[in-house]
């Protein structure tokens, strides 16, 4: 069970973020999560949106450079130290996390994190066996 993440190359991260969010807003696309990674020279905008395909089309027309990746959305257990619990499970299984960022699914009060790992299936199995709930595409699309 994965969700889709849309990434955009952003040379000027704030300028690009503004034009991307404006373009998506105009097209009626809801941005559920936004993460900006940047280095000295450029940035990468990563988003979880309610309609990835449509969002990609909109941005491609704006001549943005985009890519879509399958990532894991993980519900964080609703207790103090919930995120640590998830990270501990992954560390115990020697899972290498490339990056993660938090977001909220409207239908749920719990916080979620997006996890980018090498092997989605393996990590999904580890988390499910540990009783951790994953975010589905329907969770993202539905309200």
């Amino acid at each position, binding site marked *: 069970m994965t969700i889709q993440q849309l990434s955009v190359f952003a040379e000027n991260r704030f300028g690009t973020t503004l034009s991307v969010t404006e373009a998506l807003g105009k097209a009626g696309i809801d941005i559920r999560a936004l993460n900006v990674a940047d280095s000295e*020279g450029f940035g*990468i905008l990563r988003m979880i949106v309610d309609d990835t395909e449509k969002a990609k089309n909109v941005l491609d027309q704006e001549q943005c450079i985009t890519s879509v990746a399958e990532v894991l959305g993980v519900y964080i257990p609703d207790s103090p130290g919930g995120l640590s619990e998830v990270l501990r499970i992954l560390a115990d299984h020697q899972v290498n996390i*490339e*990056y993660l960022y938090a977001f909220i699914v409207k239908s749920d009060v719990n916080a979620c994190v997006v996890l980018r790992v090498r092997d989605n299936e393996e990590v999904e199995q580890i988390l499910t066996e540990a009783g951790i709930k994953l975010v589905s595409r329907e969770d993202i699309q539905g309200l």
Partner: protein
Amino acid sequence: MGPFYQEEIETASREQILAWQNERLVKQVRNVYDNVEYYRRKMDEKGVKPEDIQSVEDLYKLPFLTKDDLRDAYPYGLMARPLSDCVRIQSTSGTTGRRVVAFYTQHDVDLWEECCARAITAVGGTKEDVCQVCYGYGLFTGGPGLNGGSHKVGCLTLPMSSGNTDRQIQFMIDLQATILCCTPSYAAYLGESIIERGLRDQIRLKAGIFGAEAWTEEMRHDIEQKLGIKAYDIYGLTEISGPGVAFECSAQNGMHINEDHFIAEVIDPATGEVLPEGSKGELVFTSITKEAFPLLRYRTKDICILSREKCSCGRTHVKMTKPLGRSDDMLIVKGVNVFPSQIETVLLQKGLTSNYQIIVDRVNHSDTIEVKVEITPELFSDDMSTLSAREKEIVDALKSMLGIYAKVSIVEPKSIIRSEGKAVRVIDRRNLYKG
């Protein structure tokens, strides 16, 4: 007047210089025709026989040589002597095809070093002087040329080579260097470093000979002020011998070409037609005394003006202005020849868009080069370390192609400005050729 290293030659009458040139040219053309098959074929194609060249006035009949010929004939095709007669090679940086490899007999090394000795003497160098050479030593002609010239003059020579500024300053002070030879940008940097360290009153420099890159009058004043010296220009190219083909005298307004060894012409780069004295055009050299690698009518691609006006220093050899530009798109960055096509080759090899832009600048007296590349879907990744690694791959490939570090900036698509649909490939912010 003076001082001179070889007074009779340097102050010879125009008639005498012309007589030397006529005699040496006729001999050299015969020599090249008989011994360099590549050039013989060029002459045959043009229908020119050695006997058609009776004096300098006939020079225009000979075919040109260009960097393309050097590439076609690489490595031995333009040699007039067997390798066993040669004692040295020197080379420019760059990859095969762009790299120039020149061969020297002992006679060729001697005449080259004599030219450098004239340059050192012209700035006041004598056997009492201490000459610090911080051009690179090795294949690059800068270090070996000035080193040899300094020996011929009898200076105490400090063969420092480039880099290691702290050591340069220490030797300059401890050994009381009086003459400095390096690139003008390094001279400015040294000057700044000396002032920063509060050592300005401990140096004894009186003159500097600065070449291998273009520099402005503003830079000259800046260096002169910082180091408390007179700063002089020197010109040369590996194809013709190295630094010392022409050098500045006390008048500091143009460089005397060593006409007893090299005949200079200025041509229209578009038509190849020889232009009258005082016209701005491409500089062409004919080596009339070299043995191993005697190029006839070699097109330098440097734009300049020649003048035979009487010079206050007493020298009678023709003067050339500083290069006023290039007739091709070559850039000189940190003393290294860079062609935009080399950068394009690397980018295309990496599967990148051919839409790129090269920005050359001079920051704190040091050249910088930046290559902006528009991102493509293939280059992009949502993972920062992958994207950074791809960027670094381009940096490494450029480094191995050019021999110098070029900063790579990945930019958004369509963000490189196009003028009338054509991308502006090179932006040189150094303004080196303004006069």
